[in-house]
């Protein structure tokens, strides 16, 4: 009488056992070696940007590139944890601090001079361990129903004024926020940077967001009136939802203002790479005319940095930007900014 129960139960048990067997098989299968010409790229850049570059590189050279995408800081932690055993040949990040950090850990190989020469030296590693690929600029984003251009501050410092209370949104853990803090500390000193952080923290109140994407969307929806972001988030939102849905605009800060910062995205070959030559070809491709042209035409809305290529996406021309006098080395690995954020209890 209990037979049907036993039969169905036994069936389920068999299913579980077969699945387990398959799991073991897969564990073995997954360990099979890759062909020699496959590069492994650890990618902290937006995956779509990287994918279009990789596809063209593969077509052109026959060298395969497999991509692992993650948050750039987690990737950096992972590379440090992997050490010399890292399967990665290349690392491509959204921001220079991640590269400067890996450089400081002595994990990056020297970049060939011919590759570095494609990009203005001030956007490369001063130790020649990574090459700048593209750049973004920090701008104000504001809701056009709530504010007019005449309301906007000329300096990022003014965002700490009480008049922005309840209107400002912040993304303290956003990587793009740190260079602004570093820049303020660089121009005005640590104490002033901390005072500024306290001010913007008070103004933001509960309007703390995880990233620039959220700030841009919230400004656009009118939940907050103003924020500071990297320019491309606004362009990407516009591309996604259409111009008619945009109730926001971006504005540039005053010339050489501390908040007017260029962020550089770059790439490097890992010292532990066993395919150094192929990996170097990929770096060369990134900053070649072709690679830069891809970036210039892509919906990543970044500024190409190398080979004299200019963006075609209707951005303010790169050459006309008037950023704060801040070098890549000044930006460093962002440790000072993080320490200040901790001190201000924003992190």
């Amino acid at each position, binding site marked *: 009488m209990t037979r049907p129960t036993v039969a169905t139960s036994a069936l389920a048990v068999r299913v579980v056992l077969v699945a387990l067997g398959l799991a073991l098989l897969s564990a073995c*299968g997954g360990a099979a070696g890759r062909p020699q010409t496959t590069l492994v790229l650890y990618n902290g850049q937006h995956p779509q940007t990287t994918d279009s570059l990789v596809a063209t590189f593969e077509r052109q050279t026959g060298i395969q590139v497999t991509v692992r995408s993650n948050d750039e800081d987690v990737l950096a932690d992972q590379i440090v944890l992997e050490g010399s055993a890292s399967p990665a040949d290349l690392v491509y990040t959204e921001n220079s601090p991640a590269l400067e950090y890996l450089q400081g850990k002595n994990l990056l190989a020297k970049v060939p001079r011919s590759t570095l020469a494609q990009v203005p030296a001030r956007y490369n590693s001063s130790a020649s361990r990574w090459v700048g690929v593209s750049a973004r600029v920090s701008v104000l984003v504001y809701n056009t129903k709530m504010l007019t251009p005449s309301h906007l501050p000329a300096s990022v410092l003014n965002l700490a004024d009480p008049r922005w209370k309840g209107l400002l949104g912040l993304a303290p*853990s956003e990587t793009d926020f740190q260079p602004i803090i570093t820049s303020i500390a660089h121009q005005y000193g640590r104490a002033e940077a901390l005072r500024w952080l306290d001010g913007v923290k008070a103004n933001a109140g509960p309007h703390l967001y995880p990233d620039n994407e959220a700030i841009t969307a919230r400004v656009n929806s009118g939940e907050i009136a103003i924020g500071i972001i990297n320019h491309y988030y606004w362009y990407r939102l516009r591309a996604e939802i259409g111009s008619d849905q945009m109730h926001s605009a971006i504005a540039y800060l005053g010339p050489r203002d501390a908040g007017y910062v260029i962020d550089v995205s770059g790439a490097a070959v890992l010292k532990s790479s066993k395919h150094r030559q192929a990996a170097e070809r990929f770096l060369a491709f990134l900053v070649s005319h072709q690679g830069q042209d891809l970036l210039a035409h892509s919906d990543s809305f970044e500024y190409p940095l190398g080979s004299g290529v200019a963006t075609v996406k209707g951005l303010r021309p790169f050459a006309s930007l008037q950023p704060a006098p801040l070098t890549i080395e000044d930006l460093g690995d962002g440790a000072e900014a993080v320490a200040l954020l901790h001190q201000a209890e924003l992190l």
Partner: protein
Amino acid sequence: MATLASGLNSIGQLPARRRLPRGLLVASSLIAALLLLPLIFLLLEARQVGWGQVSALLFRPLTATLLGNLLQLAVVVTALAAGIGTGAAWLVERSDLPGRRLLALVLVLPLAIPDFVVAFGWVSILPSVSGYGGAVLVMTAGLYPLVYLPVAASLRGADPSLEETARTLGLGPWRTFWHVTLRQARPTILAGCLLVSLALLAEYGAFEILGYQTFTTEIFTEFQVGFNAPAACALSLVVVLLGLLVLAGEGTLRDRGRGTRAAHNSRKLISPQRLGAWRWPLVGGILLLIAVALGMPIGVIGYWLAQGGSSTLPQSASVGNAALHTVWYSAAAAAVATVLALPVALLAVRSPIRSVRLLERSTYIVQGLPGLVIALALVFFALHYLPFVYQTSGLLIAAYAIVFFPLAYVAVRASVMQAPVGLEEVARSLGRTPWQVRWRVTLPLIAPGLAAAFCLVFLSAVTELTATLILVPTGVQTLATQFWAFTGQVSYGAAAPYAAAMIAISIVPGILLGYWFDRRQRLPRGSS
């Protein structure tokens, strides 16, 4: 506590005369050791940072606020999930609620929807759903199935004759529920609560979107901004401590209970409890729950699907390809986790001595650890001791099995507790070897629990993100990683198909789960 525990437990359940089965003990110890690897990693990493650095991060007002946020949320959401989960399970299993067979299935499904999708759904439609209120709403809606599923399973497996006897003796429906049903289900409810609170300790994605900061979001932030993994690991130890406190609390409560009545002659419920005038209000309540937990996120995904992807960026993996990998990894992990849970559950239920109980409880710790930490731990150990498995699908499957072990364990344990020892003893007395008994008698008896465990882990693994990003074989995409990649690009229209696929493939085990239980209930049984 533990002595008292084992003492009380043996009164309620089993004669303490049984010998410890050595094979089970060895297997369980190995499994517990595997599950404690992340903790060892945390300790090793934390040793690298000076105490000064850790204390500077730890002892400041912000930490107190964040810990307060976390505790406040954990208490309220656990209580709500316990109430909703138990109530829904009773309605579906014991009452004459209309459409309960379908509901039994639908009520599990919120588990299949990634919390970050739910949070995103709410925030994108109603930005006011944020902060504490939003977190309570989203987490309760997403986590109540962790109580509902094991409680429903245990009610279905439990002998209803006690309740029926209580009713024929004149106990009202409410008091029958309170004094009989609830008491029987109590260990299972507590186990579900344990999972809910531990899951809350590890939660990150939803809180980030909702703008609700907890100590765990702070840890993730440390991993993501500081290039200071060791400091983040040191902070994670605080969450482990909280997890241990939760475990101790649950242990104390559980030990005060008497244990469930074994369903020796489990049979069909003769007459479901009539709901009478409560019928329609309760239907309304359940529909509201489903609307909040299921309708809302599915609606938002539908909206974004309809909007379409205006993004012209190329897709790196088709939805189908990502779905295949997701199904494959999740199914394998579900099988592994279920198989691993079995020896520990058999040992813990059949030989509940003090050391075994400690071993058992240690396996819960991983539930309170963020997937990111577990993944980094596996990076560390794999590269040191088994470099050839690094970034293979095997290691990712192992990571999933570790992350979701407690889910499998709760389901398996509940059914082992209800499998009558008597049948095994009869089989033994008929000359069967212990392994024959386990294979021919025990396994079929606990198969529903195994199936439930498999489905629970599968549903959860489908949506796993942070460990996946670190351990997935390079170049492979899962649905969750693709969803993440597109939402990071603000391409919600392009991300929506991946979220829809996640939900679609999770519905299959959900239906299987419902079908399985349903069949069992309708099978002819020996009369008692």
